[in-house]
C-alpha cells in the first residue's frame, strides 16, 4: 500500500464511522466538539486498549511514546483557573510489531490524591492545608527517562518518579535534602555527553528571588548546582543552549508576592521593562551576564548557536503574555479568542554591548522540536505545529517542517476538526532531520486520539502509519519517545 492509498483508506474508514473495535466515545457528530481537548478524565487510570492501525510503523518507532498533560480540569462543578492548573496524566502509546496500545494514569501527586479523596478542590483551605511548592504540584507538563525511571515534570516543584511500565507513581525525585521541592523546569536540555542541564525560578525566595541551575547525569545524579539572584522576577517556561552558554529568557511578567500578583495575573505584564536575557557560562555556572531584548513572551525554543560576538536562538515568540491569563473557555475558542499565535522568530542576543533584536519569520508555530543530535549548534530544521491565520476554524491540524536557513516549508494538514499536538523527531540517518516524526492528534469530530508516523523528510506525503484509539484524550503538552 503506498501512502496515498493509505490516506484514502483512512478517509474511507473515517467516513464509515470506524465501526470496528470497541468505541465508548460519542458517535460522530457534524460539528467538531473543540472542548474535548479540555475535558476531564474522571478515572485515575485508563486501562490498556488496542488501537486500530493503518499502514506500518517503522521498526525505529517500536517503543513507547510517553506524553504528559493536564487531564483533570474540574471537580464538583468547579473548573481550574488556568489550563496549567489541571492534574497531570501520563499517557503511554506503545508501538510494537503486534500493534499499538494505549494506557494512561494520573500522577499521584499530593494534590491529586487528596482532592480525589475529597471529591472537590480543597488545596490551601483548612480542609487541605498546603505546605511548600510540591503541595501545589500538578506534575502535568512533560516526561523524561532518567536513571530507568520516567520523570513526570512540572516547573515550580519536584519531578515525580514513575514506573515506566505501569506508570505508577513512586515518589518525588529528591536530588538532595536541600533540593527537595524546589522549582525544576519541564524542559531539561541534553548535553552531548548524555547529561542534562535544567533551570528553575523562584521569584518568591529571599530578597530578590532565585534562579536555580542544574547539571545532572542520565542516571539521575546531580553533578552541579548553582543559584543566582534573579535580575527581575520575570517568567520563563523553558530555556535554550548554545555550545558554551545556557540562555534563560525572562519575560517582563513580574511576580510580586507582596501585592499577591502571580504570573497568571494580567497586571503582572509590564512590557515597558523589556525582556531580560540571562546568559550562563556552561563551564562555570557562577559566570552570568544579563542582556536585553524587546518585550515579548516565549514558552518554547528551537535551535540556538554561537555566532561570533552574539548568540542566536529560535523561539516561538508571542508579543505579550496573554496565554498566561486565558480561561479554559478561551483556550477552547482557539484563534477565535482574538490573540495572535506565536511566531517562529530568531532572537539575536549580543554578548557584548548593544540591544538584541527579534527577527520574525512568516510562520506562526508552537511546540518546536529539533534534531537532538545538534544541541547548541547551528541547525536549520524545526518541526512544529503550524498555525494558519487565514482559516475560519478555531484550531488547526497542521504540522510542518520549517527549514529556517533556506526558507523551505513542508506541511501536512490532518484536516478540519483535528488538533495537532507536539510531534517528536526520532533520527534514523546521518542528515539533520533525517528520521521519523511521531505525534498525536485529537479528532474533535469523532472523539478519537490518533498516533501518526511520518518520514520526517517527506511530511507532505502524509503519514506512513496511523493508529486510532477508541478514546479521546484531553490535549497534552510534551512527550518523550523510548525505544524498545
Amino acid at each position: 500500500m503506498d501512502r496515498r492509498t493509505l490516506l484514502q483508506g483512512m478517509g474511507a474508514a473515517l467516513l464509515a464511522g470506524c465501526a470496528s473495535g470497541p468505541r465508548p466515545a460519542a458517535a460522530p457528530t457534524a460539528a467538531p466538539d473543540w472542548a474535548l481537548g479540555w475535558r476531564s478524565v474522571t478515572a485515575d487510570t485508563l486501562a490498556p486498549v488496542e488501537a486500530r492501525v493503518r499502514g506500518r510503523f517503522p521498526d525505529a518507532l517500536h517503543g513507547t511514546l510517553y506524553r504528559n498533560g493536564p487531564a483533570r480540569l474540574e471537580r464538583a462543578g468547579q473548573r481550574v483557573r488556568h489550563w496549567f492548573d489541571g492534574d497531570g496524566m501520563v499517557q503511554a502509546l506503545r508501538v510494537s510489531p503486534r500493534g499499538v496500545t494505549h494506557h494512561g494514569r494520573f500522577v499521584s501527586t499530593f494534590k491529586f490524591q487528596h482532592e480525589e479523596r475529597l471529591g472537590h478542590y480543597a488545596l490551601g483551605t483548612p480542609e487541605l492545608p498546603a505546605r511548600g511548592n510540591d503541595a501545589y504540584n500538578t506534575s502535568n507538563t512533560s516526561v523524561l527517562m532518567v536513571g530507568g525511571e520516567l520523570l513526570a515534570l512540572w516547573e515550580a516543584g519536584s519531578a515525580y518518579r514513575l514506573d515506566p511500565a505501569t506508570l505508577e507513581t513512586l515518589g518525588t525525585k529528591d536530588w538532595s535534602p536541600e533540593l527537595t521541592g524546589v522549582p525544576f523546569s519541564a524542559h531539561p536540555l541534553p548535553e552531548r555527553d548524555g547529561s542534562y542541564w535544567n533551570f528553575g525560578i523562584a521569584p518568591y525566595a529571599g530578597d530578590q528571588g532565585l534562579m536555580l541551575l542544574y547539571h545532572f547525569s542520565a542516571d539521575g545524579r546531580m553533578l552541579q548546582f548553582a543559584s543566582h539572584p534573579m535580575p527581575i522576577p520575570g517568567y520563563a517556561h523553558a530555556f535554550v543552549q548554545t555550545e558554551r552558554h545556557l540562555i534563560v529568557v525572562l519575560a517582563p511578567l513580574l511576580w510580586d508576592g507582596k501585592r499577591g500578583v502571580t504570573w497568571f495575573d494580567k497586571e503582572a505584564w509590564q512590557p515597558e521593562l523589556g525582556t531580560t536575557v540571562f546568559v550562563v557560562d556552561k563551564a562555570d555556572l557562577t559566570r552570568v551576564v544579563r542582556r536585553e531584548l524587546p518585550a515579548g513572551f516565549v514558552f518554547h525554543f528551537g535551535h540556538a548557536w554561537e555566532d561570533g560576538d552574539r548568540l542566536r536562538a529560535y523561539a516561538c515568540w508571542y508579543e505579550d503574555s496573554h496565554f498566561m491569563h486565558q480561561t479554559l473557555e478561551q483556550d477552547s475558542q482557539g484563534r477565535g479568542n482574538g490573540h495572535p499565535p506565536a511566531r517562529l522568530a530568531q532572537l539575536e542576543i549580543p554578548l557584548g554591548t548593544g540591544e538584541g533584536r527579534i527577527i520574525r519569520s512568516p510562520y506562526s508555530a508552537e511546540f518546536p522540536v529539533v534534531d537532538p543530535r545538534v544541541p547548541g549548534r547551528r541547525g536549520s530544521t524545526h518541526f512544529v505545529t503550524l498555525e494558519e491565520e487565514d482559516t475560519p476554524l478555531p484550531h488547526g491540524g497542521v504540522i510542518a517542517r520549517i527549514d529556517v536557513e533556506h526558507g523551505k516549508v513542508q506541511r501536512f494538514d490532518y484536516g478540519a476538526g483535528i488538533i495537532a499536538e507536539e510531534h517528536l523527531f526520532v533520527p534514523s540517518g546521518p542528515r539533520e532531520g533525517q528520521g521519523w516524526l511521531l505525534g498525536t492528534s485529537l479528532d474533535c469530530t469523532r472523539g478519537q486520539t490518533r498516533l501518526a508516523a511520518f518520514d520526517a523528510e517527506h511530511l507532505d506525503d502524509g503519514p506512513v502509519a496511523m493508529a486510532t484509539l477508541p478514546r479521546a484524550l484531553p490535549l497534552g503538552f510534551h512527550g518523550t519517545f523510548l525505544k524498545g
Partner: protein
Amino acid sequence: MKRLIAAALLLAANAHAATLTLDIQGLTKKTGHVLIAVHADAASFGDKGKPVAVRNVEVKDSTLTVTIPDLAPGVYAVSLFHDANDNHKLDTNFIGIPKEGYGFSNNVGARGRPSFADARFTLAADGTTLTLTVF
C-alpha cells in the same frame, strides 16, 4: 511580711492574667515536638526580640491542645513549627521553604511568612481559644 508580698503579687498576677488556649490541628507526623512562641510585638515576631512565652510540647497525635496561662490581656501573635525530627530547627529547602509543619495565629502564612499585623489577635481578659492549622 514576705508572705504578704507573695500573696499580693499572686493577686496582682491573677488580676491581669489571661489564658491562651491553642487547639493545634493537622500535624502530619506523630514524632518530635511542636515549638510555640507567643509574641507581643513585630520585633519578636520577626525573630529580633524576645517572645513573651514559649512552649515545647511533645507530639503524640495529629492534634494537640496547649494552654498558656498568666498572660496579660492584649494583642499577640503566635508562631509555631513542628520539629518532627527533634533537631531543634525548622528544616527548609534551598529556597527557604519549610520542609516541616508550621503555623501562625489567624492561620495566615500559607504562601510565605506573614507580618505581625496579619497574625495578630486579641487575648481577652477571660481567655481566648485559637484553632491553629499546621501547614
